[in-house]
């Protein structure tokens, strides 16, 4: 045994050494560059190719941006300022910005109305998007469609109130009867709402003041980016209930209902939106009673709603299919009937799974609203291709306008898709 009292070790460090920096080759910018850009031959080639393409992109666009002219009366003014140098004529944006946003027939002093409606949209949609917000805000969300409708279209406030009253009466009737039978409640609610609207029509016409508080603006005057927003928001909201109904119909055990839904969904998904817009524009009129003259925007809303409903139905069908059969069986074993089990058990879960898909459909649909420019509606793209490029002042300004349009759409769509991804991460409850 060794002597325990004497320490055989001559020296022992009592404090740890400070950590050394990693070797120069393994740290700092140089390391990062080598690791991320030049780690292999292939990577080096890719990096060089990327640098070359970046160089070309920058050299061709930067002077155009830097020399851009922001103040001018017309393209000729731009050309004078530039004196032959490369440069964008961004003056068209400053000059025609309001037209790009609101179309060319919406009166200037009313611009605050759609702007306010747009701002309130965020307040209304916030509690739906973020569960953390107080649930009381949902009341505002319910109120919002009426408010936005009144703000944008204006006219007699009584008409808007009567519409809202119809929904309230419909809901009251529904909740009175839903206990005995869902179908009875639904049908009763719908009938009651229609009766209210029908009666309200008379009352509104009788008491409507000659000059409403907010001037009535016919939908033909809507244009620009505002039209894209209106079409996108309205059609997506309207197509949600329709899409749910179609998805349930497609899953239904009743063959006739299933066939009707399948044919509708496959037909609408099988044709391009543009042909449906042709239908709205040139054919739908023939199928409506003589002398009823829907304005174009309403016909377009009908067709786009049908279009997006078919896509949303497919997304929700995916959500329904993803639910374990046990959920359906659980509903049955509790003795719930079809409507109850759908309403209380299946749909809440299926819809939750479907939200990212629905958001994707919504983004796609919002982008597709630009197609209305093909049928002579002046949305953002229509404004550019029509009145602005056709005017003598701006005839020939091309890139600036389309770039602005692309940026506007990018901001909105990118925002929505980022939200969707955030939501997807949040809803992902599986552990991988």
């Amino acid at each position, binding site marked *: 045994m060794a002597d325990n009292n004497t320490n055989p070790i001559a020296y022992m460090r009592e404090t740890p050494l400070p950590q050394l920096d990693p070797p120069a080759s393994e740290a700092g910018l140089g390391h990062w560059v080598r690791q991320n850009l030049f780690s292999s031959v292939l990577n080096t080639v890719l990096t060089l190719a990327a640098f070359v393409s970046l160089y070309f992109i920058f050299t061709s666009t930067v002077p155009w941006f830097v020399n851009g002219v922001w103040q001018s009366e017309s393209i000729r003014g731009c050309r004078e300022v530039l004196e032959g140098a490369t440069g964008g004529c961004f003056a068209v944006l400053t000059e025609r910005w309001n037209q790009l946003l609101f*179309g060319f027939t919406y009166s200037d002093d009313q611009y605050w109305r759609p702007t306010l409606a747009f701002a309130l949209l965020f307040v209304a949609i916030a509690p739906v998007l973020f569960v953390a917000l107080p649930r009381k805000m949902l009341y505002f969300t319910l109120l919002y469609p009426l408010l936005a409708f009144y703000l944008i*279209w204006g*006219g007699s406030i009584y008409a808007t109130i009567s519409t809202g009253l119809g929904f309230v009466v419909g809901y009251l009737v529904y909740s009175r009867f839903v206990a005995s039978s869902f179908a009875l409640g639904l049908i009763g609610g719908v009938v009651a709402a229609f009766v209210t609207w029908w009666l309200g029509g008379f009352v509104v016409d009788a008491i409507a003041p000659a000059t409403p508080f907010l001037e009535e603006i016919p939908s033909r005057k809507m244009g620009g980016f505002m039209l894209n927003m209106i079409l996108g928001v309205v059609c997506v909201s309207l197509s949600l209930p329709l899409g749910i109904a179609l998805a349930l119909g497609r899953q239904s055990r009743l063959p006739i209902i299933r066939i009707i839904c399948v044919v509708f969904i496959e037909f609408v998904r099988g044709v391009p939106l543009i042909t449906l817009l042709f239908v709205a524009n040139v054919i739908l009129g023939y199928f409506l009673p003589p*002398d*009823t003259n829907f304005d174009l925007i309403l016909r377009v809303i009908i067709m786009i709603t049908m279009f997006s409903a078919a896509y949303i139905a497919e997304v929700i069908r995916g959500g329904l299919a993803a639910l374990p059969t046990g959920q359906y069986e659980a509903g049955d074993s509790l003795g719930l009937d079809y409507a109850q089990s759908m309403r209380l058990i299946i749909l809440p879960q299926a819809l939750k799974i479907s939200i990212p898909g629905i958001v994707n459909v919504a983004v796609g649909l919002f982008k597709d609203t630009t197609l209305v420019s093909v049928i002579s509606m002046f949305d953002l793209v229509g404004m550019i291709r029509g009145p602005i*490029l*056709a*005017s003598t002042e701006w*005839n*020939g300004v091309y890139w600036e306008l389309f770039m602005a349009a692309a940026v506007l759409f990018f901001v909105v769509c990118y925002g929505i898709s980022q939200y969707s991804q955030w939501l997807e991460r949040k809803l992902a409850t599986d552990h991988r």
Partner: protein
Amino acid sequence: MNRTVFFGALTVAGLAAVAASAGTLDDVKARGKLNCGVSTGLVGFAAPDASGRWGGFDVTICRAVAAAVLGDAEAVEFVPTTGKTRFTALASGEVDLLARNTTWTLSRDVDLKFDFVGVNYYDGQGFMVPKALGVSSAKELDGATVCIQTGTTTELNLADFFRSNNMSYEPVPIETNAEAQQQYLAGACDTLTTDASGLAATRAAFENPDDHIVLPEIVSKEPLGPLVRHGDNEWGDIVRWTLNALVSAEELGITSANLAELSGGTDNPEINRILGTEGNMGEMLGLDADWAARAIAVGGNYAEVFETNIGENTPIGLSRGLNALWTDGGLIYSPPFR
């Protein structure tokens, strides 16, 4: 009322029985607005200005009809239509009157069941080429790439012209004037073809208009005029005679300047008949006596409308040419007001 229509659509989708149409004139009067189909933007003929107000040669016809019928030149709802949608818009009743540089052809008049009420502009299809190309006649265009601004009957005339001259070509159909112009200036096509009036308007907007020439050949007849639905002759008469009133006004020297003075009564019976101080022309049409005076007051007589919108002092710079009065060797002629 728009709101009623909206809710009607939302609620009953038109389940209510619909009374038979009572005629366009009554409809327009009941509505208090004239729905007028115009082009989506063709400078000089129909285009909204920077503040969104529609103006142009065709637009003035719409306003004149509105003034004659409703007494208010602003009581017009302009419905922009494309080449594709214009006929359906008129046939389905979406518009009461189509003033969209539409060529009067037999098949449109007969097969599509429309009535062309007259000609407000005699046009013809022409070609524009860059001067540098060294082409002086359309007959030298064999093998050329041709940008076609699709519109009236452009594609058909072009095919006929090249076939009858035994030449080949490559057509590039383009929807809007702005894009046709972009393609043409970039050299993606050798020549741009559309109605000569449109060519003049396009050329006027170029950076260097002098580098381009419009070839002398006019390869088609394009009588452009307003049209209405077939079968409602009373309405057609009103539009036809509103147009005639503008032409007659030029012929008789009625201008927007002396209109008020002449409305007091003159020695010329035809002026008096037009302006309603003599006879009952307005009553025959179902309008009041000074309908024509109101129509002329909108933009003046035919010559004034021409000069303010497309004449030589405008950027478009068209000369009267075929569209001079018959007394000046042109084709513009109005039947007598009698």
